[in-house]
């Protein structure tokens, strides 16, 4: 599969994605839904997570990717921007640095970000596609992550090959299992181990994720029984109607139905707990966003808030107004969705 950018697909353009998302379809706008829940305007309540997207290069081309990442993408965070992120981090008490991509490990500055964040005493999360751990160029990656006690949050949409490979590419499941076993051998995911290994389930199609506790129990039982794999937690994430998943929805005639489903499933509890209220997202070029999804459709932080990491101002950003749109229904449907899974307890 090719990236939208690589095939010059119209939906590679954030403007075209927003044009589709902003079509009036007689639904309640997200802002109206927030107002009805007493949450409008939505504002940040501090910054607990600095999420750094180091670029769009990836060794996989997953069907649902909201980044449109792939081997042909060249957008990469430079050393200068990475150093800027760390200098600004040092001025704050933000406890968690969440590194994502693309495959973030393929950025030459990934290890610098990990080492520097750890030196500053921060918790570090690596959002990994797992197969990157098996690349010859990354032979020592798993040990590096373990040595620095990096939490690994790894994508695995199902515990069988069929659904996983349909979404993530041929033989990705087999390689993912091999990578998970490698992490288990280093102590990752084992009961009582400080080396945290959490998995991410996202639906392999135009439907919502199951209850997190239920599917976590299925994954634990089946991954252990079938593949001898252990992990700590499973996070369910709803697919966002942007980028490649938006293309899938539109090209398969599922777009309107899926959007209706998200709107109907709006949950005020999930709206109150959205991750953007406690996260600041940094793009590969240093620009600031409320979340990784806004980053991909190029909706920067609200006017008036510092727009680039070089202008980072904790006080101004910690109370900023959140920029919202119809895609935000993806985080407020059902039990909610965030980079840490469901946001509403079962």
């Amino acid at each position: 599969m090719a990236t939208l950018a690589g095939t010059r697909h119209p939906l590679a353009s954030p403007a075209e994605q927003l044009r589709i998302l902003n079509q009036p379809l007689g639904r309640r706008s997200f802002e109206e839904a927030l107002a009805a829940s007493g949450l409008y305007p939505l504002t940040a309540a501090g910054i607990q997570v600095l999420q750094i997207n180091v670029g769009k290069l990836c060794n996989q081309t997953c069907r649902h990717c909201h980044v449109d990442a792939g081997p042909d993408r060249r957008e990469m965070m430079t050393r200068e921007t990475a150093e800027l992120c760390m200098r600004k981090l040092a001025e704050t008490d933000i406890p968690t640095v969440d590194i994502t991509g693309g495959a973030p490990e393929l950025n030459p500055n990934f290890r610098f970000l990990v080492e520097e964040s750890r030196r500053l005493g921060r918790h570090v999360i690596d959002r990994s596609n797992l197969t990157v751990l098996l690349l010859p160029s990354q032979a020592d990656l798993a040990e590096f992550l373990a040595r620095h006690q990096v939490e690994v949050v790894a994508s695995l949409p199902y515990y069988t090959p069929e659904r996983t490979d349909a979404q993530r590419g041929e033989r990705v499941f087999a390689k993912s299992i091999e990578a998970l076993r490698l992490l288990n051998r280093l102590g990752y995911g084992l009961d009582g181990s400080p080396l945290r290994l959490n998995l991410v389930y996202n639906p392999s199609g135009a439907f919502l994720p199951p209850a997190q506790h239920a599917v976590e129990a299925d994954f634990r039982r089946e991954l252990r029984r079938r593949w001898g794999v252990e992990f700590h937690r499973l996070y369910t994430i709803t697919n966002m109607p942007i980028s490649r998943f938006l293309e899938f929805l539109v090209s398969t005639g599922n777009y309107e139905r899926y959007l209706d489903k998200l709107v109907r499933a709006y949950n005020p509890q999930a709206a109150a707990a959205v991750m953007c209220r406690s996260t600041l997202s940094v793009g590969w070029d240093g620009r600031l966003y409320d979340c990784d999804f806004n980053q991909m459709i190029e909706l920067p932080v609200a006017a008036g808030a510092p727009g680039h990491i070089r202008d980072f101002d904790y006080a101004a950003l910690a109370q900023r107004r959140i920029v919202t749109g119809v895609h935000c229904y993806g985080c407020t449907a059902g039990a909610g969705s965030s980079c840490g899974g469901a946001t509403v307890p079962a």
Partner: protein
Amino acid sequence: MSSYYHEEDLARFAEMGEHAPELWNKFQQWYSAVFAEGALTQREKSLIALAVAHAVQCPYCIDAYTEDCLEKGADLAQMTEAVHVAAAIRGGASLVHGLQMRNAAKRLSM
């Protein structure tokens, strides 16, 4: 040729409450309670519903519970087995009526 069943009618199901709201509300409450997690998980209930949908051959229910099964974390292998259970019971139900046939034949025969 127009079809007797229309996919978009599923979304109009609630219109059945228009002339009998109390009965509709009771049905809704009961229906929700039936599918809540209990001694059976929600996924197990959804797979049973999918099987029954095939047994009663309701296209609306098949669409609805295919999606619901996926949203409860079931995969095609589980869903296909559930349909086989429905088919086996339907087939077995026909076959076991063969005894009715045998009884009748015996009654009529020398």
